[in-house]
């Protein structure tokens, strides 16, 4: 039986953490993720979880402690945002290269500067090459559901990689919406006990984690890590299937909203997908065949699947809530177009930058973008690449 509730995204993830009851959580507070460690430490103080909560002195220490705990054999997680994730950067790579299935609740907030506390994806995107699995949520429900799926994905023997479960700062983390929660028992059963085969605190079976690797070995290790990331794609789908059986809620690598016959598709990630869907509904009523591809899994990047999903449309808007400062658009703009080209899907694409540092992205914005795509295809109107939505000019 599901439990109908109303909750913020932070509350929802904390609720999932209580149900999972991880062994260790080192964390340092940072807006807008602060509520997660705050709530978990309350659960620990109230005896609702057995989690060892470690209040550390920085995010660098939080990730270091998390790596140590996970290597020791404890199911470990942490939470952070923005510059907190940036301060973890060095350790993020080590968590992945040491193949430690940690979980991190990332509440997306822009990276400084200018210093700002609101949502964009520059923190998560900045960590895109650290070797972490990254799953993004549209709303509190997805943040909750994704977090329950996190450990079964990360701990799968063919994966053994850390996983980031992302939700949009404030928009999702602080807005209270309806949610369907699962009961504790099925969640506990779904996630299961953590029984690593090899770990540091294992008497009689000594191991060394993270040894120095000379050039004759390091490249092979990196290839194995990349293979594990590729394996994660299949595992994410298997876990989603099992999750569907338990919850009745379906998840894939991405969600296709009214794309089957769509001429124009907006590829977008996170909370703004809801805005894009609303625009699609309104445009469909007026006769435009519009659709949304909401990317859920950014790492591993489902290049082939995206190409397959976009191949029959006339034009796609690729929406980046992040600037790459490379003169060539955002990370999604670069990766999606590379994937399309490699899979020989040659369609019109326009890369847009929106919602930086909490800038509003409205249904009207989305509709204007669809109109622009139609103008490009039907009237040959030139469209500027890499343009900023809602920018004062």
């Amino acid at each position: 039986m599901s439990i109908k509730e109303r909750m913020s995204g932070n509350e929802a993830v904390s609720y999932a953490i209580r149900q999972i009851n991880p062994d260790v959580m080192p964390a340092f507070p940072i807006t807008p993720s602060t509520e997660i460690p705050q709530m978990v430490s309350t659960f620990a103080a109230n005896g609702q979880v057995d989690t060892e909560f470690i209040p550390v002195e920085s995010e660098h220490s939080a990730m270091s402690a998390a790596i140590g705990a996970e290597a020791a054999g404890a199911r470990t997680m942490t939470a952070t945002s923005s510059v907190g994730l940036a301060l973890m950067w060095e350790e993020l790579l080590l968590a992945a290269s040491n193949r430690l299935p940690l979980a991190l609740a990332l509440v997306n907030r822009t990276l400084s500067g200018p210093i700002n506390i609101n949502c964009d994806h520059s923190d998560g995107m900045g960590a895109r090459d650290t070797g972490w699995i990254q799953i993004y949520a549209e709303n509190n429900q997805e943040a909750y559901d994704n977090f329950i799926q996190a450990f079964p994905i990360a701990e799968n023997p063919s994966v053994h990689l850390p996983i980031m479960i992302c939700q949009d700062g404030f928009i999702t983390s602080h807005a209270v919406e309806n949610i369907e929660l699962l009961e504790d028992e099925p969640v506990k059963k779904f996630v299961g006990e953590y029984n690593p085969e090899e770990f540091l605190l294992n008497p009689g079976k000594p191991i060394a984690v993270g040894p120095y690797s000379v050039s004759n070995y390091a490249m092979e290790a990196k290839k194995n890590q990349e293979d594990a990331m590729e394996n994660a794609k299949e595992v994410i789908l298997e876990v989603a299937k099992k999750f569907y059986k338990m919850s009745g809620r379906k998840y894939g690598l991405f969600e296709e909203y009214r794309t089957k016959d769509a001429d124009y598709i907006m590829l977008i990630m996170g909370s703004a997908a809801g805005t894009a869907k609303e625009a699609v509904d309104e445009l469909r009523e007026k006769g435009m065949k519009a659709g949304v591809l909401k990317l859920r899994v950014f790492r591993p990047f489902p290049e082939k699947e995206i190409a397959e999903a976009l191949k029959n449309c006339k034009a796609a808007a690729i929406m980046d809530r992040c600037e790459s400062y490379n003169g060539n658009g955002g990370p999604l703009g670069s990766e999606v177009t590379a994937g399309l080209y490699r899979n020989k899907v040659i369609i019109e694409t326009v890369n847009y930058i929106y919602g930086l540092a909490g800038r509003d992205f409205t249904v009207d914005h989305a509709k204007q973008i669809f109109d622009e795509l139609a103008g490009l295809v039907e009237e040959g109107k030139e469209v500027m690449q890499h343009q900023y939505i809602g920018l004062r000019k």
Partner: protein
Amino acid sequence: MRTDVSKINETTPHTGLTEGLMIFGAGTSKEFKTGEWRTNTPVFLEDKCKQCLLCAPVCPDSCIPVTDGKREKFDMDHCKGCGICAKVCPFGAIEMKEGIEA
């Protein structure tokens, strides 16, 4: 998954390596002959040695074995030729020679 690390070498394909290059075993650094990094080599002049044993504890790689109160020959499999032992010897019983061979 527990792997015999002694069977892993520089010809092992990537699929044969351990996950995250973890080492499943203890004291395995002994198997790794770091002495080949050496560019200078200590020479032990036994006649000059008074067995004062100042050299043994200062060696960063524990390459001067001591048995029954007497130092023995250098462990050249692990000596990196840093020369600390030669500096600390009050009797000039250790000389540094250029190259990997004594």
